[in-house]
């Protein structure tokens, strides 16, 4: 792993004193390799390495730490600073209902995340309501309906010939009549470069004013993560990210890239297909997973 690679590099460092540029160059190559293999964005890695290098060169080699430990310490500090050093919580409207809209690319895990989020809120004493606004994917509405029914969460949708905005508005009405305090809207997967589909989300946002818009991102996403996140931020100014499929072995570098480039926090992570597989995001755990 990275720390053992850095140990090897600095094993030959005989003199006590300062870390020279040459010492740091070799170490930075290893850190860069680790981050790129973890799918952190190329440009984000470049900026990150520049910051770490600046801090590492000329650093006094302390009595208490080996040079490798010191470089690792700097890397971890900078990573945690980028990832956000505190857990970011889901925020709720000052007066109910809180409206949460889930958006993202095709197949990222939105529909299952909607159901999981509703289930999670229910176990915390809230009264969630699910709206199925994906009229495009075959049986998408059935998918959310089955999940809602299995977990006894009130649900609204309509025939897939109904425009999504109409479904959302009618759903909110039904939720309010139901006395629900959190309304979760599942939307169809779409490409960030599909102007018409992005326009549909902008329209729902302006008409319905969701309290939270969450971008659902697959943990195995590679370099394209920044393109997607930037476009969704520019069009919708989303509030946070749900990262899914972290039960696999993807390093999840996209998490770092998205945070670095949009400054929006990852709020929740999904670690499985079961309904209770949603967890709060721990930035320090993510940082060490990325470093490998």
């Amino acid at each position, binding site marked *: 792993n990275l720390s053992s690679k850095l140990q090897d590099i600095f094993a030959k460092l005989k003199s006590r004193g300062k870390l020279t540029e040459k010492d740091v160059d070799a170490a930075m190559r290893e850190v860069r*390799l680790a981050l*790129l*293999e*973890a*799918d952190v*964005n*190329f440009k984000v890695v470049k900026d990150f390495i520049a910051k770490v290098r600046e801090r590492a060169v000329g650093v006094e080699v302390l009595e208490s730490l080996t040079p490798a430990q010191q470089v690792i310490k700097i890397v971890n500090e900078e990573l945690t600073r980028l990832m956000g050093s505190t857990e970011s919580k889901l925020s709720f409207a000052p007066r109910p209902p809180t409206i949460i809209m889930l958006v993202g*690319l*095709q*197949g*990222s*895990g939105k529909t299952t995340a909607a159901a999981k989020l509703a289930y999670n809120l229910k176990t915390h004493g809230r009264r969630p309501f699910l709206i199925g606004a994906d009229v*495009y*994917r*075959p*049986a*998408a509405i*059935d*998918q959310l*309906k*089955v*999940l809602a029914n*299995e977990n006894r969460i009130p649900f609204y949708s309509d025939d897939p010939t109904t425009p999504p905005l109409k479904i959302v508005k009618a759903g909110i009405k039904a939720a309010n009549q139901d006395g629900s305090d959190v309304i979760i809207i599942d939307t169809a997967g779409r*490409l*960030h*470069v599909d102007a018409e589909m992005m326009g549909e989300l902008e329209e729902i946002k302006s008409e319905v004013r969701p309290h939270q818009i969450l971008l659902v991102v*697959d*943990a*195995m*996403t*590679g*370099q*394209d*993560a920044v*393109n*997607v996140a930037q476009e969704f931020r520019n069009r919708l100014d989303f509030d946070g990210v749900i990262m899914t*499929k972290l*039960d*696999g*072995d*993807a*390093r999840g*570098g*996209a998490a770092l890239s998205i945070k670095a480039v949009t400054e929006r926090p990852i709020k929740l992570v999904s670690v499985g*297909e079961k309904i209770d597989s949603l967890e709060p995001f721990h930035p320090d755990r993510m940082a060490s997973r990325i470093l490998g």
Partner: protein
Amino acid sequence: LLSIRKIDEELWDDIEAILIQADIGIQSTMRIIDNLKDRVAMQKINESEQVIELLKEELVDILRFESPQTLHDTTARRVILVVGVNGTGKTTTIAKLARRYVNAGKSVLLAAADTFRAAAIEQLDIWAKRLNVDIIKHERGSDPAAVVYDAIHAANARKTDILLIDTAGRLHTYVNLMEELKKIKRIADREKGNAQLETLLVIDATTGQNGIAQARLFDEALKVDGIILTKLDGTAKGGIVLAIQDELKIPVRYVGVGEGMEDLHEFNPKEFVEALVG
């Protein structure tokens, strides 16, 4: 970016940036650039456009494959097992493959062997109706192996040309789920009669380096015959297939470029490389 300029460190840096941002991965990128530098030195190349042409040739060489004889036999009956991690586009891709075969005058049968996920059977059923093809399905929660068994026997009895088997998405790290897939393949292999059995792995073009782990483990478990790269209509370049082909020699057969049943193209290495290098 890659117009007429000197061959210097900056050019190599720019090439590296293009390849890494295409998800080719740092290891494959370094190897490709080292090979390029050797050829530039040996062939005494001094124009940057030539370097770019060599780069494209190198990438196309990696992606080219000799398609096996069995693929060219248009009279062969086929059983096509479609696998991959969650959400990559398996079910939708089966609809697209079915469409191609129907257009080619073949009889097609679908098997709804994802008996796990909510509304998975309903999703494939809707496609079957749109395509006007038959579908073999059981109750949700039933044994997927039983669906496969029934579907193959139905296809054999009807002498159906093409049987497409949809499976549940699963992460390659779940040993029990990979074992389930191995069992499904064993049954398909045993019962297929005179049909050719093909295993196609569906990979999302937005996938980063984890795509290599996916290909490795699915190949280890099942022996994968080809890859279908989906969602290439986005901005991701799908360069991970280069690293996969380099290491595992598994060729890309088709690319998915949209959500409709017509949005599937045969893989063309030259076009793919042109789009990747940009």
